[in-house]
């Protein structure tokens, strides 16, 4: 990488952010430091340096997600990028256009940053092979959602001042969750003591080899936890296919005050949203003093600013302009 006096220091090595699995602990630390700075700057109400000025960012969402898309949009705009949102309707896919067709079409518009969400695991990686811009995985199927794990880590770090040595319990639908996979990858790299808490039908096969302790009893799983990270249970999994009913799930795996009391005093309560109140989490807990759920949203924007900034530093155009 060409280093000139004016060019900003690289934060990560890769030209894309496709998965946490691709990042080293040092890179994760550097991204979190940068995000931390952006979070502070935003809180102080200061304006941000327009490090993405002149760059085009396209948010390509094959799967609807208002909050993640808005978060990326805001992050890009705060740093001066020209942001275009593209929701790929089911109809254009029904017309036979493939992911790669869409990618090639967009590539021809020469964006610099492409933020992609897709319902199939691996689809973002496939797309990244075919475009010439930086690609951020905003969630692919049940594979990864790297910026979510980074923002979760940032939220924890700001509250508990560290990641190493903490006990984090991820609870709920681990099997179908990309948030869980990215968090498992990140927490393992950062030497967190990780626990996976779920009914056996919502644990993925081979879970025992992921470097985490497995609990099928939530009360056991929460003992000694510093952080309780809840996952969303998709509606279609509540109807008897994976668990018998929402009310039975809530009875045994819902996080209410009683359940939370089992965890360490002052344990953080997290949720990637959107929440099913009364299914996986009780409203009093979700809005309670231990909940950092709204702060996760705030850290989401800061984290995505850091990611976009980091990737822009590796762009050929940026490097040339700086040289």
């Amino acid at each position, binding site marked *: 990488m060409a280093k000139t006096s004016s060019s900003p220091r690289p934060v990560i090595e890769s030209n894309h952010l496709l998965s946490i699995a691709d990042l080293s602990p040092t890179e994760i630390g550097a991204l979190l430091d940068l995000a931390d700075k952006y979070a502070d700057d935003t809180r102080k109400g200061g304006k941000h340096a327009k490090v993405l000025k002149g760059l085009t960012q396209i948010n390509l969402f094959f799967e609807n997600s208002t909050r993640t898309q808005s978060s990326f949009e805001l992050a890009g705009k705060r740093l001066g990028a020209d942001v275009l949102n593209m929701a790929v309707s089911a109809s254009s896919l029904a017309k036979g256009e493939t992911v790669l067709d869409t990618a090639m079409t967009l590539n021809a518009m020469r964006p610099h940053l492409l933020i992609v969400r*897709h319902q*199939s*695991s691996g*689809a973002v990686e496939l797309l990244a092979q075919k475009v010439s811009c930086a690609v951020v995985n905003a969630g692919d199927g049940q594979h990864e959602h790297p910026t979510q794990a980074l923002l979760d880590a940032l939220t924890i770090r700001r509250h508990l001042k560290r990641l190493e040595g903490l006990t984090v319990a991820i609870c709920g639908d681990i099997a179908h969750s990309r948030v869980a*996979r990215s968090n498992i990858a990140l927490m393992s790299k950062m030497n967190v003591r990780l626990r996976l808490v779920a009914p056996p039908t919502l644990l993925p*096969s*081979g879970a025992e*080899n992921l470097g985490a302790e497995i609990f099928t009893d939530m009360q056991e799983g929460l003992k000694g936890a510093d952080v309780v990270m809840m996952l969303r249970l998709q509606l279609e999994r509540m109807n008897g296919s994976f668990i018998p009913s929402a009310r039975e799930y809530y009875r045994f795996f819902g996080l209410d005050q009683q359940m939370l009391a089992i965890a360490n005093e002052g344990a953080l309560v997290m949720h990637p949203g959107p929440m099913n109140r009364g299914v996986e989490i009780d409203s009093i807990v979700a809005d309670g003093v231990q909940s950092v759920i709204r702060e996760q949203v705030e850290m989401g924007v800061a984290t995505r600013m850091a990611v976009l900034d980091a990737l822009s530093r590796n762009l050929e155009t940026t490097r040339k302009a700086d040289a």
Partner: protein
Amino acid sequence: MAKNISNITDRTAYVNARLFDPATKLDQTGGVLIEDGVIKWMGDAVTRASLPEGTSITDVKGALLIPGLIDMRVFTGEPGSEHRETLHSASRAAAAGGVTSIVIQPNTQPVMDDASIVDFILRRAQDTADVRVYPMAAITQDLNGEKMTEFGLLKEAGAIALTDGIHSVRNSKVLSRAMKYAGNFNMLVVQHVEDSDLAGGVMHAGESATRLGLPGIPAVAELIALERDIRLVEMTGSPYHAAQISCEASLQIIRQAKDRGLPVSCGVSINHLTLNEHDIGAYRTFFKISPPLRREEDRKALVAGVADGTIDVIVSSHDPQDADTKRVPFSEAAFGAVGLETLLAAGLSLVHSGQLPLERLVEAMTDAPARLLGIKGGRLEQGANADIAIVDMSVPWIVDADLLKSASRNTTFEARAFEGRVIETIVGGVSVYKL
């Protein structure tokens, strides 16, 4: 094979070969004289000096000369998806791999569930294919697992066995009746062993699938289907063949069935003998096959299963797919990989690494399938059809997908370095491929 019937007076011979045929326990230096498409004379006495004048003689310089391979699981796109593979292009791929007989699966459009489609395929093969083509017809109409096809009429038309190909007959009553009825026509029932309710996923269920966020196919999906089918064999007494097994535990089930004297046999694909789940890497769809690539322990056990004879045959499970079906996200991609051209070379890699004896490798791709299917071939002996593959055992080469003869490029062996390659393939005395 059909093209050269005019040269009936031609005599051709291959000399200075290592004649190798497990079925007849043959392993000696010698030659083969071919007349009118059949092996006229063979052995150590067949030398350049001993052959009659006018014989066209090829000195193969010590290369291995084996019976042409019989691949009992080949999918083509004819009729219906000719852009993926025609009988002609499949036969060119077969010839390049030393395969002289291909057994075509019924998953065509329209489905090969009617005598007229069998007849069509045989006529097209007669006109366009360079190797022998044997159709394997559907067990159920439109492969829907519900109603039996006309086994007797299909057999009269030229179908040699029955299978629903990539589908498993799920309804136990339908399968038990089909087995009983097929036994009456002495037709082998070949089953894709997979419980479709448990399957559902796209790769082996395990840590890799979990990390990739892909739904898994557990080994038990195969074990349950296999155990159920074997109970039906016990009930009907009809011959049954599990098309491909992929797990270590399946070997135990097959062994027990054979020990009990049941007419059960099974196959394995060359992919499952040489690759494992980790070859999928970062969502490489060419490695998405059915049954899925499983653990390395499974692969090793399957190789041992071929070596000890628990597994009867090795197939390529050649299944051509194009960019439309493979250059898409992993979950959406079609199953299947081409394999005719690399079948033997990949098999030889197991021989060279000491995992499998050469005689079992060759037997599992020649005599074993011939006997199971009741077709002539798979042996080197006087009077047999001159279907022969000549193999340089030690020549190194690297697979280049762009050079494959198949109309599709979805090989699992792209850029793989192999040692040993087919240098000439002969079908009915006619040379159909030369390197």
